[in-house]
């Protein structure tokens, strides 16, 4: 229940951020389109284009199914075992892959799964004469699951933890078996978030670039993103790059629409926010199964990270950390990440508030409904606009206003904000909807609004999801090399850029050390994001 003013204000916020996003992307595309690239005369959609489109969709579909499917048992087990040893650290570690530059993640994976990796070392000792090779589709899938399973598991876990405590009392007093609990409680909670998670992961995998090339084993594994990069950075044919981008956005949008057509579960009823206690899963088999799921997932996650740590420790860490260039890069990276994070959280808040306001209407008209759909769609599809397209477009736009390097930090922050937006929306939306459902009627009947509502009602409940969202966005932004490269970056040295510049001049050791530091920073960020986690669970 919102007052008319609140509703109108909510919708206005949403439209403003929608307008901002559309302008930011549209202006970049417009600048690129109007740039006279001369006649290229190449046909855009050749057999080659169709082949890479097919491969892009195929690997993204498989990666999504695997990441989401494997995340379900992990999330269920973690939700059932709130006292699992080191649980909070497992959850925190799950955020680290997101903040790593992909190449570093790939090298970590290769340390375990590669030809000379730990696994092949074991197999060779057991008498296998040729190493097992992951290069090809299997390598791509492995890497995509490594980066995305933790994300899916975290979002599902959050959904499970939002279930009202009453459910567990009831299920226990009804004597429900674990299968019934899964069918009636857990699955309906997870089912609600799966389309969103699957869509997000599908987009991430469809636009994957470095992982696909490094682990794909050859040009048979090429995604549209590679072709876009090639068209813009190597051949410099903006029209071709834009046509390919539209193909990527269009096709993926169709798939996302298909995913969103899956029936949404009916809304869960409001609860009073009592402390959650689980009474199920006390049998030895259930314990064993849960432990296995958690341990396997943790090992899958930790081993490559451990390999990154081991190589990182070989570097002269003290020297790296105290060098002025590192300190400058860390400051730049954190400033950009914080700006991008704040912007992403603000935009996400506006979008969600608007959608909630529309959902709150008794009889939303067609324009309101389509605005809501547009807001939902827009906040996901931004992930599909290649950063190199945005970067180049804005370069053209800003060039008449002087040295573009001056605008670079703001631009990178804006691009990172767009990248992070879909994640933040996924984190915030369910929490805000639940909060609205819990408190909406009560605050309305008590006549609490404005600052009082913000401070007394919203702040206590929403601080935690806001922090999680912010730390998600910051971790993403920290690991992004993205659009920096084009601008001439003497004034814009970021941490991932530092890693790559070491790698591109034989200094692998330094790069390993820096990657380790970057990983630690991400971990600290998620610690901030999950601070008060226990407290929130023990709320009485």
């Amino acid at each position: 229940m919102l007052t008319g003013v609140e509703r109108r204000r909510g919708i206005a916020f949403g439209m403003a951020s929608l307008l901002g996003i559309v302008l930011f992307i549209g202006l970049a595309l417009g600048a690129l389109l109007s740039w006279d690239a001369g006649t290229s005369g190449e046909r855009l959609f050749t057999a080659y284009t169709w082949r890479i489109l097919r491969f892009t969709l195929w690997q993204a579909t498989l990666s999504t199914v695997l990441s989401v499917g494997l995340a379900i048992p992990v999330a269920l087990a973690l939700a059932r075992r709130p006292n699992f040893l080191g649980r909070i650290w497992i959850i925190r570690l799950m955020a680290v892959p997101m903040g790593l530059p992909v190449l570093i993640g790939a090298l970590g994976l290769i340390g375990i799964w590669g030809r000379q990796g730990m696994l092949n070392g074991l197999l060779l000792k057991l008498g296998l004469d040729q190493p097992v090779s992951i290069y090809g589709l299997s390598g791509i899938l492995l890497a995509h699951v490594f980066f995305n399973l933790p994300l899916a598991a975290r979002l599902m876990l959050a959904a499970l933890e939002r279930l009202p405590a009453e459910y567990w009392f009831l299920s226990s007093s009804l004597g429900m078996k674990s299968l019934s609990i899964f069918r009636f409680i857990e699955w309906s909670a997870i089912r609600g978030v799966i389309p969103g998670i699957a869509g997000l992961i599908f987009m991430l995998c469809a636009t994957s670039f470095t992982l696909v090339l490094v682990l794909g084993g050859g040009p048979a594994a090429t995604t549209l993103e590679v072709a876009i990069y090639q068209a813009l950075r190597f051949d410099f044919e903006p029209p071709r790059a834009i046509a390919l981008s539209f193909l990527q956005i269009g096709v993926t949008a169709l798939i996302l629409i298909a995913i969103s057509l899956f029936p949404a579960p009916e809304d869960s009823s409001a609860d009073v926010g009592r402390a959650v206690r689980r009474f199920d899963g006390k049998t030895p088999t259930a314990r064993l199964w849960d432990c296995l799921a958690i341990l396997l997932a943790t090992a899958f996650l930790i081993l490559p990270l451990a390999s990154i740590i081991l190589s990182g420790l070989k570097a002269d860490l003290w020297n790296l950390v105290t060098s002025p260039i590192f300190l400058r890069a860390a400051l730049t990276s954190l400033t950009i990440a914080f700006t991008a994070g704040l912007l992403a959280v603000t935009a996400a808040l506006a979008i969600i508030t608007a959608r909630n306001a529309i959902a709150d209407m008794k009889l939303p008209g067609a324009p309101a409904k389509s605005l809501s759909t547009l807001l939902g769609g827009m906040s996901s599809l931004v992930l599909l606009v290649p950063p190199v397209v945005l970067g180049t477009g804005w370069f053209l736009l800003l060039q008449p206003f002087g040295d573009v390097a001056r605008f670079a930090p703001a631009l990178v922050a804006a691009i990172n904000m767009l990248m992070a937006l879909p994640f933040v929306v996924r984190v915030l939306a369910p929490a805000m909807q639940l909060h609205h459902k819990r408190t909406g009627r009560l605050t309305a009947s008590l006549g609490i609004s404005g600052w009082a509502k913000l401070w007394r009602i919203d702040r206590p409940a929403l601080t935690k999801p806001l922090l999680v969202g912010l730390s998600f966005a910051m971790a993403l932004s920290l690991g992004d090399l993205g659009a920096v490269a084009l601008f001439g970056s003497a004034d814009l040295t970021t941490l991932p850029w530092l890693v790559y510049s070491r790698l591109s001049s034989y200094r692998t050791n330094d790069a390993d050390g820096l990657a380790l530091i970057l990983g630690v920073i991400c971990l600290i960020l998620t610690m901030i994001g999950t601070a008060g986690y226990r407290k929130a669970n023990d709320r009485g």
Partner: protein
Amino acid sequence: MRSTIFLSIAAAAGLCFSSASAQEKTLTIYTYESFIAEWGPGPKVKEAFEKTCGCVLNMVGIADGVALLTRLKLEGESTGADIVLGLDTNLISEAKVTGLFETHGIDTSAVNVPGGYTDDTFIPYDYGHFAVVYDTQAIKNPPKSLKELVEGDPSQKIAIEDPRTATPGLGLLLWMKSVYGDQAPEAWTKLKNRILTVTPGWSEAYGLFTKGEVPMVLSYATSPAYHLIEENTDRYQAAAFSEGHYIQIEVAALLRTASDKDLARQFLSFMISPAFQDIIPTTNWMMPAAKTSQPLPEAFGKLVQPQKTFLMGSDEVAKNRRAWIDEWLAAMSMN
């Protein structure tokens, strides 16, 4: 939004501080990123040139050679650069089409690169032969020719770079074309079995190599010098191929819109003098394109000295690149 504005202001303020002495003449050079890294040639070149020119040398680093050209195309006539340093010979034809460059008009008789490359606009400042670098701990009998690489044991893998996104990848493509001509697609089909993976750039391939994941990598004949001098190890060696090696020559040129052309020409002359050339080998890890004042460090004497050098004209490359890449894609994507 306020914080973004704040960031822009902060960045602008940073710029003001870095170009303090505005009274002096300034020469702006666009180059690739690793040239201006703290361990790269940039800082030493700046110091050496500023001693003699009474000017400020402002070097802007932009990713790699290809991005450098893209940046120039984007900026067009309004470019802030006086000199561009870091294109390679394959890009020259495309660079000339932009009409942004001016003939250098200086004496380049000091330049001495294998194959004797000369041009009235672009001046070489260093070069390197592409080579297969191998790990002596993993490979006892390295291939002695491109033919042996193509036809050798498929269980000994190599990592190469993608010709669609990286200049060394394009280099190997042209190398294969120079040696095999019309038979190149068949050769690629054979070589494919030895290729562990095709990476988007040199860094990824070389990273796989130094991590021990792959025993061979497409790199430069000068790569072992880095490991010898900086890491004191002769573990990584380049394989000498009997057919000869393809060369990458890095060049610089003067822009038509340069503000002070005399100063720019002064730099180009400086670039092929011993003062500049002395810096190149142990900072850019490439071979000097002109005389150095001292003999090269001992490690460079141990490097592979190719008997024959391949280099295709940049017009030929520009004309055929698309078709050859398609040919490569077809050969490499076959199962």
